[in-house]
């Protein structure tokens, strides 16, 4: 049912692929006339913050000896912000990433860093398009979902 032109690139697709979850609709909901750029701002903050965190993660994984507590701290941050933004696949990677930290599994951490970067890049590239689509819906007088406030 959910198919057709435009849809694949939009919010449906992101939901469908599990890239985003319901939390993102929370953010959509928070954007209104008084804060028309809220989504963009928070997403941008997430992107910037994530880039920094990924850099920190890369650095901390190069350290010798490896301080897993530090790595875990970064992952925790990343998990928190991705969860807040609704980037659930990133968040999932972070969850298993933390397990690797718990197990002091260096290779696992490196693999997960790569995965996290990959997932983050997907979110970053898709969200731009998604935001545009959202904006379009609002501009056309559409109703954003989850208006249960």
């Amino acid at each position, binding site marked *: 049912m959910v198919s057709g032109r435009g849809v694949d690139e939009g919010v449906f697709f992101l*939901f*469908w692929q*599990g890239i985003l979850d319901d939390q993102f609709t929370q953010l959509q909901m928070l954007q209104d006339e008084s804060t028309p750029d809220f989504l963009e701002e*928070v997403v941008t*903050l997430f992107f910037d913050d994530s880039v920094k965190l990924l850099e920190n993660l890369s650095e901390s994984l190069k350290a010798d000896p490896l301080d897993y507590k530090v790595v875990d701290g970064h992952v*925790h*941050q990343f998990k*928190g912000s991705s*969860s807040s933004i609704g980037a659930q696949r990133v968040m999932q990677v972070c969850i298993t990433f933390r397990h690797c930290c718990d197990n002091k599994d260096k290779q696992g951490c490196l693999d997960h860093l790569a995965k996290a970067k990959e997932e983050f890049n997907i979110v970053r590239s898709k969200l731009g398009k998604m935001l545009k689509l959202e904006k379009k819906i609002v501009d056309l007088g559409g109703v954003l979902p989850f208006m249960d406030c």
Partner: protein
Amino acid sequence: MTSVEYWQKIAKDLSVENEELRKQLGSFQQPKGVAVQEVLTQLFVEKVKDVSPLESIIDTPTHAEAVKLPGFAKSSIKKNLSRTSFAQMDVSEGLDKDLVMELSEMEYSEHFRGLDRLDAVEVLERTNNIELLLQMVLKDVPVIISHCDKDLCYTYVKFVDHPLTKVSPEDMKGKKDTELVGLVPGALETMRIKKEVLELGIAIGKEVTVTMDGFGKRWLVVACEPLRNKAGQILGVITACMDVTEQALARERLAQMREEMAVREATEKELRRAIRLADEAMEAKNNFLAVMSHEIRTPLNGVLGMAQVLATTPLDPEQRELVSAMVFSADVLLAIISDVLDLSKVEAGTLKLEEKELNPRDIVKHVVRTAIAASKDRGITIHADIGDDVPSVVYGDPLRIKQVITNLVFNAVKFTRKGHVKVRLHVAKFSMEARKTDLKHSVSDSLTRASKLESTEDAVHMTDRKTEGNEILMGRSSLLKLRQLGGGESWDPLMEGGRRDLPELSVTEDEMGDTIRGPITGTAHSKRLMKMHSAGFTFQDVHEAVTGLSGGDQKASTGGDQAQRDFWLKFEIEDTGIGIPKDALPTLFEKFTLVHSSTTRKYGGTGLGLAICKQLVELMDGHISVVSTEGKGSTFTFTLRCKRPPAATGSPGSAKLVSETKMKENLSHSTANVHKLQAGMCSSLKSETILSNLQTYQVLDDDRGPRRSVLVDATSYRVPTKLPRGSLKVRHTNDSDCYGYLDDSREKARSLEEESYSHTASWAARQGAWTESRDRGGVNRGGLRRTSSGPSRINTLMMADLDHSKSVPAISAPGPVVDKKLPSLLLAEDNKVNVMVALSMLKKLGLSADVAYNGMEAIRALQAKHYDLVLMDICMPVLDGLEVTRRIRRYEDLGYWDEESTLTPSDRKPGSPGALEDLPLKVIHKQSASSPVIGLDKVKRMPIIAMTANALSDCERQCSATGMDSFMTKPVTFKKLKDVLALHLPHKSSMPSP
């Protein structure tokens, strides 16, 4: 050498020998732990003292003394008989056996019996004086002394008071052990020891067990020593034997107890291990369920989200219906996933039911509509038959009720290939008397009632019951029994160890007539019932019975409000499907039970559905049963105890009547304008009191066409919830109120509303976290309120179901104008994105918050300023949320910040991960660590809301134990935040409407 000289010599030799013997005996006794030698010596001396008058008697015999000491006359002991030295002891010529005999007769006749058989030589050789004295000394010593010759035959036995054999010592002489007690192991062993002593010439001691007739099993310590003459030749064996049976038995008991204790310890250890394993397994299960439910829920949320987005796009009616079904299914699936999780809660007794307003009619209609949509091509008809008497507003848990109906209806549809599925909803009727007793939840009452019913109800019923011989279940299972008459198989899960403390439901004639309808030929009853329905009697009867308001029924109205509000709803789901085999009925409601494995292959299913239904129904004080005929169909029936909303004060009866009458009238109308008007009135009426942004939607009801105004909002449910301390008082509206006020003037309505408000001043309305939860398990774990995750299911359903609706944000509801002061909030959170999102959500609620990016900053902020509430992240750098909470609570207890509370952890690492010091800090840093707040004797407790990504119950418990008031799982959603703030923010500073 004269005879006297000869004997003197012999006596001298023997004296020496006896001294040796005494020493040996002493050394033999000593290792056994008895200082016999010493004792013997002492006693010996004393005895000799006693004997000493002999000397004088010998010298100067008098008659009188001779009388005192009869033995003296015949004795001829020499004068120099010394009392101190055996060595000097002499044996007079006249010493003979008579002395021994006399003494023995005098004092120890028993022990000396038989000595007369020994000649003087033997006496001297074996016993001499020392023997005599030893006999005296050993009188009270519980040792049996014996002597055996080289053939191991007894030549002498000295018994204590308790002989070991029935054989007298005299008779023992000349016999061996084995001859005395038979060839028993103990005797053989003793013989063996003696033989060894004879052969080896060494002393041997051992414990032996002898079983003897008349004495039972005895434990003896046997110590044997060779008796030698002066030349060193072994003459025989001296044996000392002590009965240690008591000690041995005590020892055995002790050993046995030790063994038992060891067994018990092992068992206990095993049990502890089992408990630990069970706990671990339970924890693992719960963790697994938590994780899995989250894993499933997340993609499902995606599906649901898409469907809901889809519902907002232009769609034709058919598509809209499909989307509606899709949303509903996803919604139900979400609910079921939650309930799989809840199943463990039910088992642990911690499942909480919500109690809020619901419309049972709507729920049934929604379910039926969805089932129709889902089974479009199946060729079966699905319809709802809702009694006029069923009220539109009752209290209960809408999600659970909907879940049960959905489960049963979809089950029915699944197993029905042709024919129909019918959902009936009625008010179960029963007499006031029965209802009153019913409220007592008494099984014994039900017994009485059952017997009463037996005497009054129809013969068929009675006969059947008698056949069954189960009177207790009769009242409850009247329906079931009648079904049985119709040839159908039935099953009442209560009969299989279900809850027996449930209220008995006495079924009136009407009720029975009702149940007879359908597959059973209860035409007469059916007709009568229909007639009653058509005449409107039923509604009236029920109304009177339940509310006790009509006709000045003072008697009824004297009952408690609770009793007046309670009534029973009966749901029946009838199908013409494949039916249930008789042998499958007993386990039908057990979890993971499917009728047959082939059923799964053919029809699918998890086997959880009916188990969940049963558990949920029973949790709601209800009862579920099934009647089925294989090949013809099944009817599942469940009854639920429901509450009506409380009537307003003043003249509640009339007000309620007006309300319900108007409701009925209004339901018959079909013009949208009327409802718009109603909605408008409602909104204007409520505009002063409604908390947040309510939205009113016009909903076209089912095909019959009555239109109803439904308020779709989280706060549109009135809930009889007592306000927690410091909670937000909320007023709200509901559709029935709207109808009730329609015909009244606005002022009157306002007045009623105010009265109602004052009556329900202690109520708060909330969805999810606000709703008073009934803890069926009787366990309040931690007391934290967890805001529900996921979308508001009812609301989303409503949204998707608004096929003909146009959302009309008719109500613009400003917040209470009582106090404009905004609550001051502190957000302790280290994640920038989280902070931004939370602040934005707060902004949406018209609130703002100061931000602390770590625990220490939070402490400093709290020192500098008073806050009404803290949103506290658990995992923060520098100081975690739990520690901050501890310090805050300590501050509240003390009235000032103690030094410890203001200390930064020494192990703090600057620039530790997550310490986002570079962000602008909104908190005013006013270092007041060294200057505690003065004058704060009692600091008001501040609500602290935990925010954590860890949704597990352990974390929740930990937060609760630390002193946090609520627990909010991350990611924070708008609803969760709104609910939790509404719950904890003080009324005077309640949230403004966005």
